[in-house]
Each structure stands twice: as C-alpha cells, then as structure tokens.
C-alpha cells in the first residue's frame, strides 16, 4: 500500500510547493477573501441583530464562493501545462491523484477560511454560545464536502464549454444538503445549541461522496 500513498504524498507536496511558489495566486486569493468579507459586511449590516442571527449562513456562503474560485484556479493550471494528459498516461492509480488533489484543495480552502474567519468574528462580533469545538468539526467536515465534490466536478468541467460556470452549476445543487447542514450547525452552535444531527449528516455525506468520487474518478479522468 506504500505506492498509492507515496504517489499521493508526492503529488500533494508538488501542488503545495507550486502554490507556495506562485505567490500571485495566493496573494490574489487572500485579497479576494478580504473583499468577500467586506462586501458581505456592507450588504448585511453587522450591527443589526438579524445579521448576527444569519451570520452562520453568511460565513458559509463566503466560504463557498472562495472554494469555487480556488477550485477553478487549481485545475486551470493543470490544463495550461497539459498535466492532465501526463496523469492519464502515468501508471499512477487515479485514486491517489484524486486524493492528492482533494487534500491540496482542502488545505488551500482551509487557509482561506482561516483568514476570513477572524474577520467575520471581528466585523459581526460573533461569539460561540454553544460548544465551540463542534464549530471546528463542522468547518472540517463542511469544507471537505465542498472540496471533494468540487474537485470531482472541476475535473468533469474540464471538457465542457464555459468551464468556469460549469463548476458551480454542477456543484451547488448537489451540495445543498451539505450546505444546509453546515449553515444550520453553525447557526445552532453560535446560538448556544449543539448540532449533533447536522454533524452526523455531514460526516455521512462526506463518507458517501468521498467513496463514490473515488470510485468514479478514474472514469472521469480517462474520458477523452
């Protein structure tokens, strides 16, 4: 079992190194995250009591936008350099590549979330009245849900016209149950309740969709 995990590790490290080296991409994504939070603050007045009640939803919509931009961006680089064809002819199992890509995207999106969260907390004066550790769990599970489907659909969108719009078109409907769970869980925890049901739903969703995406990725990768 060392070969697939080795490939995963190598691919992941390569992606991370590339991201780190191409500071342009990171800088623009950072600035984008800041912009999103500020635009949201102007659109949904943080001082209003209602806004704090919907803050859970606002945060996740912001994360969703960031994830879509990040996902579109990571595959774009692959296409430019015809990396995908190299993947296809390499003996590496498609699963390893998929996991590497998902992990890379997960790290990337998590970094963006980690940057946006303090801003949201500051602007909206958020405070977790419920178990705060559950928030971390929701963040991890929720981000994984978006990223695993997003990476899969991004690969699918590669061979479509209007590639950039195709990703959200495919991702959003299928992510709705997960989105509902993320938002409701965050709102509940911020409001002082636990979110056990939603966390379990997210965990199950992650399990099912990760498995199926792994099973189907080889098919999608090899589709000419």
């Amino acid at each position, binding site marked *: 079992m060392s070969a697939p995990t080795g490939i995963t590790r190598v691919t992941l490290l390569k992606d991370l190194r590339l991201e780190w080296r191409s500071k342009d991409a990171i800088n623009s994504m950072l600035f984008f995250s800041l912009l999103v939070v500020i635009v949201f603050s102007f659109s949904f007045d943080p001082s209003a009591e209602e806004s704090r009640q919907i803050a859970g939803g606002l945060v996740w919509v912001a994360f969703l936008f960031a994830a879509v931009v990040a996902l579109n961006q990571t595959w774009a680089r692959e296409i430019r350099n015809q990396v995908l064809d190299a993947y296809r002819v390499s003996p590496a199992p498609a699963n390893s590549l998929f996991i590497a890509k998902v992990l890379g995207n997960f790290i990337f999106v998590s970094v963006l979330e980690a940057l946006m969260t303090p801003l949201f907390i500051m602007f909206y004066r958020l405070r977790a009245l419920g178990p705060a550790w559950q928030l971390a769990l929701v963040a991890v599970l929720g981000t994984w849900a978006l990223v695993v*489907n997003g990476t*899969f659909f991004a690969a*699918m969108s590669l*061979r*479509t*016209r*209007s590639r950039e719009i*195709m990703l959200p*078109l*495919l991702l*959003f*409907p*299928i992510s*709705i*149950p*997960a989105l*509902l*769970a993320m938002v*409701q869980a965050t709102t509940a925890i911020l409001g002082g309740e636990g979110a056990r*049901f*939603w966390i379990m*739903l997210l965990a*199950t*969703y992650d399990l*099912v*969709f990760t498995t*199926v*995406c792994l099973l*189907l990725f080889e*098919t*999608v990768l090899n*589709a*000419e």
Partner: protein
Amino acid sequence: MSCESCISDWILLKKAFPILGVLTAILLAYAFYQALWVAPTEQTMGSVQRIFYYHVPSAIIGFMLFFINFGASIFYLIKRNPAADMVALVTAEVGVVFLTVNLVTGPIWARPVWGIWWTWDMRLTSTLVLWLIYVSYLFLRRFSSSGETPLLAAALAVLGALCVPFVYFSIWFFRTQHPQPVMGGGGSIDPRMLHVLLINWLAFSCFAFLVCWARYRLEQLQREVDAAYAMESLRDPRRST
C-alpha cells in the same frame, strides 16, 4: 444503419404509437373529467384542491423517471451500452418536464390556500432541489464537448441520485426545527379522491411513456445522422459538415 431494424422500427412506430397515443388521450380526458367533475369537493379548500390531481402525479412520475435514469446510468457505467445512455438522457429530460409541472402547480395551489406563493415546506423544497440536480445534469449534457459525455453524465447522475436521501433527511430535520404548514395536507385521504388520483397517475404515466418513446426515437435518429456525417467527413474530408 441496417435495413431490417429500420423496417421493423418503422412498422412499430407507424402502427403501435398512434394507437397508444389515442388510447392515452382518451385516458387523459377521462382522468380530466374525473378530477374536475366526479371527485368530491374538498371541505376546507374547495375546488382549488382539484389541482392535487395534477400536482401529485407529476411528482410521482418525475421521481419514477429519475429512478429509471439512475438505473440506466449505472447500467451505462458498467456496460457502456448506448441505448442505456439514451434512456438516461430521455428520462432526465421528461422527468424535468414533469417536475416543472409540479413546481408550477404547487405555488398556484399554495397562493389561494395559504396566501403565499412559496413555502419552504418539506415536499416543495425537496422537489426543487431534485429539479436543480437534474437540470444541472442536462446542462452538463448540453455543454460537454467531450466525446465521452455519456460517461460523465452517468457519473453525475449517480452522484445526484445518491444525494436524494440526504436532501430528504436534511430538509426533514430542518423542518422539524422550523415547522411550517405542510402543502398538500397530510393525513388520510378520502378513498374516492384516491381513486381519482390513481386514474390521473395512470393516465399521465402512459403519457410519460409515450413522450419518452418519442424523445428516444428522436435521439436515436439524431445520433444516426451525426454518425453518418462523421463517416462522410472521414471518407471525404472535403465535405464540410
């Protein structure tokens, strides 16, 4: 394109389809009459409740078609059978049409009964999400420039179908936390109403079958024409498509 298949095809089409079409039209007319005249008037809602006889069968048939789409997509993923792919495409399209009917009649019913056009109630919301998933499937079909579109579409269909239980569970729990009036009423149904409902469901099912058949035939023809063009441009590159 073999001649034997197109002749037997032609016979089947020319003979069976119009007969079934007429029978279905009669059945639909009968169901229409039943819904508007024979079915008893509901106590609280009045005649508006009769929308029920069109609203509910549309949903049931839409879900049935999506289930067939799921089966056909899995079959395609395993066997790469082109007929399975066409069945998947056809059932998705016709399913979307039926769900559109459901989503349009829903608000028209809600407005006089509840005073609002839309309520994020369990059934309407789930139907909407399902509709979104299959519309995105149709978009993938339309926008994909890959030669392996059927494969990608089949993968998407499987993911979409797997999403369905999550859609139901998440919205169900959401609704138990934020209760709202349930559209279409819960509880038991008058057996006479059930009878009319079943008749309409049967009539629309036959209608759906015929529409799928026609769409399937159209798709078949389209692919034969595309294949002929492809062959032609291979044989004679000077011919432009």
